[in-house]
């Protein structure tokens, strides 16, 4: 058996202090180590009262007195974590519990005070860090995941489940976890995972994921290899950050930028046209003036007059055309409405009936797949008008013009196609100029080269695009992506 002295020194080594309580008179005496801990104070009241008043943190006074009474009166064991004020004036965490009384000793009880400050602090630090981690994860919508490549298991934390719209008890399937990525991202994701699993190459990518209900959203994903002690890769660990909102904003912003850029180039084009097209008339006027000065006879002068009339007519025409463009652009301020293709087409056909009848043109329309669209009605009519008159203007001399108009939806995007059996055009030669202003490709007198320019403008202003395919002597197809 150890004697008291040996026991004391062992307890001291473990930083354990103790009280002896006389159960008969409830008097407390404490070990030397306890006395040292609290700075060997001198006091007149009882140990217990002094302890309650000066040593024990006030938060625990009530509980401690309760436990103490139960122990001394009913011999009921207890254990409590509390804070004591030590000799340096600072509070430290201790665990206080009574030692089981083996010999059924009814006279004394022993209370142990074990210093647990370090572990308590570690615990707080962990709790604190966990709190920050959790708050950060929730605030930034960042979820953690782990792929156990050895045992073929996937683990997701709650935030990952939240951003993928999965219930909290959802177990992501290892074999089918690719369903959570948009199909177009599969090659990228597969290659990233494979490189990480095989060669330990970490990844950080932006990609489109797909939630449980097949709705796509943008994430930033990082992944790093996890090694075992033998430095073999046993899994991949990483996070998904839901950046859909930012990404959508970014894409919108890019879209706005693109629109601004095209508007800008349109303005540039417009300025160019103004300078070019108007200048050609004004320079002709200058020439006439010079010739008038040079003219020696009245007959010579009078001969020049018809030229002046021609120039003024052309100048007027050019200004009207420019005015037209400006007017079309100002429709921009109008709002989109649901427009029926059928109605828009019948409006256009009514206004071009004389041309259609004269050329005996046949117009076939298929609007079954997509009957209506949210668009600026004036734009849709103008687009149809330009494409139809274009098709008739450039009809093949050997056959009656047939125009086939079709709407459909592909990949959730609405399309309009206008095909004709006309002259066709060599796109290798003229493709890049097709939609430029004042580009005319045929010798037709009434080709002004402004219709397609306006059509392209209108389509692009509303965020769409227009493309063309054509075969000489066979026909042309314009495809509008809304």
């Amino acid at each position: 058996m150890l004697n008291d002295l040996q026991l004391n020194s062992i307890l001291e080594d473990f930083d354990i202090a103790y009280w002896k309580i006389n159960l008969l008179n409830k008097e407390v005496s404490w070990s030397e180590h306890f006395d040292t801990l609290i700075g060997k104070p001198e006091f007149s009241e009882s140990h217990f009262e002094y302890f309650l008043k000066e040593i024990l943190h006030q938060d625990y006074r009530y509980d401690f007195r309760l436990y103490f009474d139960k122990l001394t009166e009913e011999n009921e064991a207890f254990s409590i974590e509390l804070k004591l004020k030590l000799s340096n004036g600072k509070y430290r965490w201790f665990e206080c519990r009574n030692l089981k009384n083996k010999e059924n000793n009814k006279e004394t009880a022993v209370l142990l005070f074990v210093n647990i400050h370090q572990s308590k602090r570690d615990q707080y630090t962990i709790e604190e860090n966990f709190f920050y981690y959790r708050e950060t994860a929730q605030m930034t919508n960042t979820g953690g995941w782990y792929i156990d490549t050895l045992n073929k298991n996937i683990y997701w934390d709650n935030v990952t489940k939240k951003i993928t719209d999965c219930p909290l008890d959802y177990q992501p399937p290892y074999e089918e976890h690719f369903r959570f990525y948009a199909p177009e991202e599969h090659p990228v994701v597969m290659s990233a995972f494979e490189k990480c699993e095989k060669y330990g190459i970490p990844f950080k990518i932006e990609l489109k994921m797909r939630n449980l209900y097949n709705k796509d959203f943008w994430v930033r994903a990082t992944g790093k290899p996890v090694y075992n002690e033998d430095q073999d890769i046993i899994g991949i660990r990483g996070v998904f950050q839901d950046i859909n909102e930012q990404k959508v904003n970014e894409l919108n912003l890019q879209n706005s930028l693109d629109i601004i850029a095209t508007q800008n180039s349109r303005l540039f084009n417009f300025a160019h046209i103004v300078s070019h097209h108007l200048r050609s008339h004004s320079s002709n006027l200058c020439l006439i003036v010079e010739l008038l000065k040079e003219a020696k006879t009245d007959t010579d002068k009078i001969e020049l007059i018809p030229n002046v009339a021609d120039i003024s007519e052309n100048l007027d025409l050019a200004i009207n055309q420019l005015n037209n463009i400006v007017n079309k652009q100002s429709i921009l301020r109008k709002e989109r409405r649901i427009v029926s293709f059928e109605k828009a087409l019948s409006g256009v056909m009514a206004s071009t009936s004389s041309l259609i009848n004269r050329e005996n043109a046949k117009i076939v329309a298929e609007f079954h797949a997509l009957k209506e669209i949210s668009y600026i009605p004036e734009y849709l009519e103008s687009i149809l008008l330009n494409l139809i008159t274009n098709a008739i203007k450039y009809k093949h001399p050997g056959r009656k013009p047939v125009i086939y108009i079709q709407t459909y939806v592909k990949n959730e995007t609405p399309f309009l196609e206008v095909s004709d059996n006309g002259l066709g055009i060599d796109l290798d030669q003229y493709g890049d100029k097709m939609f430029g202003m004042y580009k005319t490709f045929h010798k037709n007198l009434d080709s002004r080269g402004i219709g397609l320019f306006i059509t392209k403008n209108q389509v692009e202003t509303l965020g769409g695009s227009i493309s063309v395919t054509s075969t000489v002597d066979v026909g042309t197809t314009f495809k509008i992506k809304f």
Partner: protein
Amino acid sequence: MGQKVELACIIDDDKIYVNLVKKIIEIKKLSENLLIFKNGMEALDHFKLILENATEEILPDIIFLDINMPIMDGWEFLNEFIKIKNNFEKKITLYVVSSSIDPRDLERAKSFNLVTDYLIKPIELKKFEKIFDRNGHAAA
């Protein structure tokens, strides 16, 4: 005044301009003959015919080439003309003439070696006389 230009050529789709220049050339007697094409393609086809000896006509001494024309514009004509010009025995002086004051058009025109100068419409009468005169000296 130097030696008279035998044949001048205008490639331009602006009828009024062409008429006026025609008048100037007539009044000032700048060239004996005048060849007029509405676009680059017509001019090119004509020059090719001469090269193939399919016609009795001769090549012009001087060409005034517009930029903006339908079917084949001035740039396209220049690109095609480069390919065949070495087959000509005659030296042809070529001016690009346009109402465009866009500096990019000017730069582009100067990038062609065979372009003598870029002239901005309207060309003054005196300038016309100079051009034809200088051409006369050069040919002499």
